[in-house]
């Protein structure tokens, strides 16, 4: 028998992230690089480790290869354990039936056996779409203190934006009295972060009932939470303060990267008490050559800078050749910016090559994107908001 765990985390990493356009053509959203050396999933995984939650199931189904390889044994997050650790959980055949995950709740339902192994009191539900540092253990204490059946993490959003979110209406004791998905006239500005803690016995019951309901779309936000509220279960909100960014679109991913260049950083990645762990590619320190100009940027191991880098995020193994200019840009691992190329307000994906003298992006307008392993011919231009993949012709 497995040793009992107080709380098991389930990380929903199956989303396609279609709003990230060509960036998620070959990898799932949680595997998308962020912040110079991280991937989005490093944040929830590191939060788990730092919160003392050492058993994590990662539910994948869209383009899982990259994510599986990245998570591996879980060693970078200290999640390679004898008791517990990180487990990648793709959909699988059960008897004669096999099916994809139909919704967030169904994904957890299909992995109830995994959770049951640990006889947990609580289950933490996470998603792999956000950049934030959060102490899940503090949230768990809040859940226990309130004797809650479910606790939903919320953050206060500007009132004018509240109608874009799932809004929790609460009383003065943090009890959730109503949940409204994208309300036209919001009564509260407490937006759900998609981070839930459930008392496992309750969740098991609701997941089983939800599965039996053929009309349900098997989703936490649409079905499980409204049902629990209707049944007058104890539902409380947990207010989160601090940096939180949804990186679901090209613009927001770019913005979240640029946020790291603000002084002071809105999310402290130097914090020794709350490290964000990542798989390390094992390169030498980066090199800034004679004649290079670097300012207001983040640069990491294995990169070689011969040109001009301004207000940008440079990932590992990137090369910026002489006379190239990179400004307000995100250059992902292994990309090469050839001589004289200009990259502005753009995201250049992994292992892409920007040919000599090419121009990517414009000083204003939407973010231009050059996709995974694309070799952009010398001298061509990519306009603001344009996305270039290997099928684009010039």
């Amino acid at each position, binding site marked *: 028998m497995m040793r009992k765990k107080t709380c098991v985390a389930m990380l929903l990493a199956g989303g396609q992230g279609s709003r990230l356009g060509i960036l998620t053509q070959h990898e799932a959203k949680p595997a998308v690089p962020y912040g110079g050396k991280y991937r989005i999933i490093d944040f929830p995984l590191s939060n788990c480790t730092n919160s003392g939650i050492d058993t994590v199931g990662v539910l994948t189904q869209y383009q899982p290869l990259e994510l599986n390889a990245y998570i591996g044994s879980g060693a970078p997050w200290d999640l390679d354990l004898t008791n517990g650790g990180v487990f990648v959980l793709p959909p699988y055949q059960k008897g004669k039936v096999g099916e994809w995950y139909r919704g967030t709740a169904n994904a957890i339902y299909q992995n109830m056996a995994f959770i049951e192994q640990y006889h947990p009191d609580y289950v933490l539900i996470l998603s792999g779409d956000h950049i934030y540092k959060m102490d899940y253990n503090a949230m768990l204490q809040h859940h226990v203190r309130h004797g809650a059946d479910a606790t939903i993490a919320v953050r206060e959003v500007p009132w004018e934006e509240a109608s874009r979110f799932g809004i929790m209406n609460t009383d003065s004791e943090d009890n959730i009295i109503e949940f409204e998905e994208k309300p036209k006239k919001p009564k509260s500005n407490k937006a759900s972060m998609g981070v839930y803690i459930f008392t496992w016995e309750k969740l098991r019951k609701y997941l089983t009932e939800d599965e039996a309901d053929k009309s349900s779309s098997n989703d936490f936000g649409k079905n499980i939470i409204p049902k629990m509220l209707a049944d007058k279960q104890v539902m409380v909100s947990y207010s989160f303060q601090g940096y939180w960014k949804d990186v679901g679109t090209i613009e927001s991913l770019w913005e979240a990267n640029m946020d790291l260049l603000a002084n002071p950083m809105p999310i402290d990645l130097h914090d020794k008490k709350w490290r*964000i762990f*990542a798989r390390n590619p*094992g390169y030498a*320190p*980066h090199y*800034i050559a004679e004649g290079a100009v*670097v300012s207001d940027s983040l640069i990491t191991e294995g990169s070689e800078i011969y040109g001009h880098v301004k207000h940008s995020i440079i990932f590992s193994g990137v090369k910026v050749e002489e006379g190239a200019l990179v400004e307000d840009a995100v250059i992902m691992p292994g990309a090469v910016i050839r001589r004289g190329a200009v990259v502005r307000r753009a995201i250049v994906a992994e292992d892409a090559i920007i040919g000599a003298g090419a121009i990517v992006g414009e000083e204003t307008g939407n973010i231009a994107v050059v996709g995974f392993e694309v070799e952009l011919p010398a001298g061509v231009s990519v306009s603001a908001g344009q996305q270039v993949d290997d099928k684009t012709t010039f």
Partner: protein
Amino acid sequence: MKDVMGVIYTGDNDARLRELTMTRAIAALPVAGRYRVIDFLVSSMVNGGMRNVGVIMQKNYHSLMDHLGSGKEWDLHGKNDGLYLLPPFLTRENVGVYTGILDALRSNTNYLSRSKQEYVVLSGSSIIYNARMQDFIRFHLDSGSEITLMYSKNPSIQRDEYGTYLAVGEDGLVTDVESDPAKPSYPNTFMDVCIMRRDLLRSLVDKAVAHGQHDLIRDVLMPEVQAGHARVTAWEYTGPVWLIDSVQSFFRFNMDVLNSETRAALFPADLPVYTKVRDEMPARYTEDVTCVNSLVADGCIIEGTVENSVLFRGVRIAPGAHVKNCIIMQDGHVHSDAYIENCILDKQAVIKRNARLIGPDAYPIVIAKNVVI
């Protein structure tokens, strides 16, 4: 190459490294911005397919143990074989203090006899290289010789004194070995790396120690070559190699790595050098900074001027500070308007506001660990 094990001896003489080796072995010296000397040696062995690597430790081995840990970073934490840390110990046969590698091997004879591999690669630890070990092993197996030595003609290994030089015939046969000559007769510097059968090593060690001999080169290799008892061949490593045995050679190595071609030769894409990971965020440059011809590790914050320097993880260069031709180890901090040139700052050293510290080119100033100036 499952049939080859590696043994690294870390008891090398370190008198000329001054404060840098006060609290650590040469093998544990921080180099090239994020590594320790031993990372290159262990990574070479692992990349060459060796799954059993023993590290014989002598004095000041705490930092070495802390760094190597379970060997996880080198994938040496498996159930079969893996990384063996061999600290000195006192028993009836073992004095705990080794006078050289022979003593050390004799004391660890149990480890040698318990290991399953047929061949052993022995390496010293005051040396940095990134050799393609498969080629070295293949050469040895094909040569049919008893012992194969690794040597270099690369100018990067140049040294003013001390060293072992080999006369190598066209067929790779070693015809003469000379140790510490005032003027070397041969251009081939022995790299303190050799390969032989494990049982041969055991019998050579046993014989030598039984006769009161301590020196692998003078007491074992030289007589074998001169008397022609064993067929000794040599394999040339053509990559860059540095002996780290003085402050000057340590400084020169770090400065050489600033050269892009040298760096490419030392870090080929298919021979990665692994090290303990610290999970620092990428280095951060603020506005209006100057940084040229420098290696900068993760976790650094650069707000001043950096020229021809190597900055390790977590170094901070404050606004107005100027760093030229310096090596600044982990978490070093140069405060506003300080100027330092030709300095080596050991870990956590701090240069206070407005300080000026200029070392001569040929004799860099060493600031010891945790010192505040």
